[in-house]
């Protein structure tokens, strides 16, 4: 699965964190990198049955980590009581 990630939403730090967290589930390749966006390709590792779901889980983790970083910079940010998601 290929996705173009806007750096206005997604961050490099979160991408690194997500890639590390999902290193046993999928591999992530940066296809193209620009000032406003990066294009990545997500491939499930052998043994992972549902590639689409693995990619979606990775993207959700990436979004979650990115939003946490963005919101932490905002004054008085309270993220509520929702549990942080983890690789499944």
């Amino acid at each position: 699965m290929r996705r173009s990630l806007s750096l206005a939403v997604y961050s490099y730090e979160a991408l690194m964190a997500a890639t590390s967290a999902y290193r046993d589930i999928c591999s992530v390749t940066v296809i193209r990198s620009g000032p406003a966006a990066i294009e990545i390709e997500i491939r499930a590792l052998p043994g992972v049955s549902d590639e689409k779901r693995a990619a979606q889980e990775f993207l959700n983790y990436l979004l979650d980590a990115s939003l946490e970083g963005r919101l932490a910079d905002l004054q008085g940010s309270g993220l509520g009581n929702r549990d942080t998601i983890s690789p499944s």
Partner: protein
Amino acid sequence: MLPTAPIVRIHQEGCSHSGDLMSLRTQPTPWIRVGEDGTLKIVVNTAIYPVEVLFRTCYTFTDRCYLFLEPDEEKNCVYIHISGKELSADVGAVAGEFANELINQELRRQIAAETRSIRELIVTQAFAEADFQARSDAEADYQEDPKGIAP
């Protein structure tokens, strides 16, 4: 002033779509489109809802569904792709909840802005009354019982 206009819709001025949305079938809620694969796509106008509000809203939903954000800064909008984590998930209902949560978060943001000065005043007053230097009682040996708690 709270926004009263439709807050999330596909065919907003300046956020109009072509191409892929044409293939999406219309759902009962007119500003939500659901594709054949069950993926839902809505557009949030960031001129109405700041990205902070959008981010907070998305954050509350990432444990329930898959989200992918595709901002279009030229058109001041963000395309939200939503799909359920379970095959039986009702993404249409999730989208409705998402839109309501946008209103909720925007209201919270406005109230926080309106009450910021009074909250800061309360905290300032609370800290002004506290004497952090007088720690003799707090650090006293319990056997000395400086407050006379023991009978």
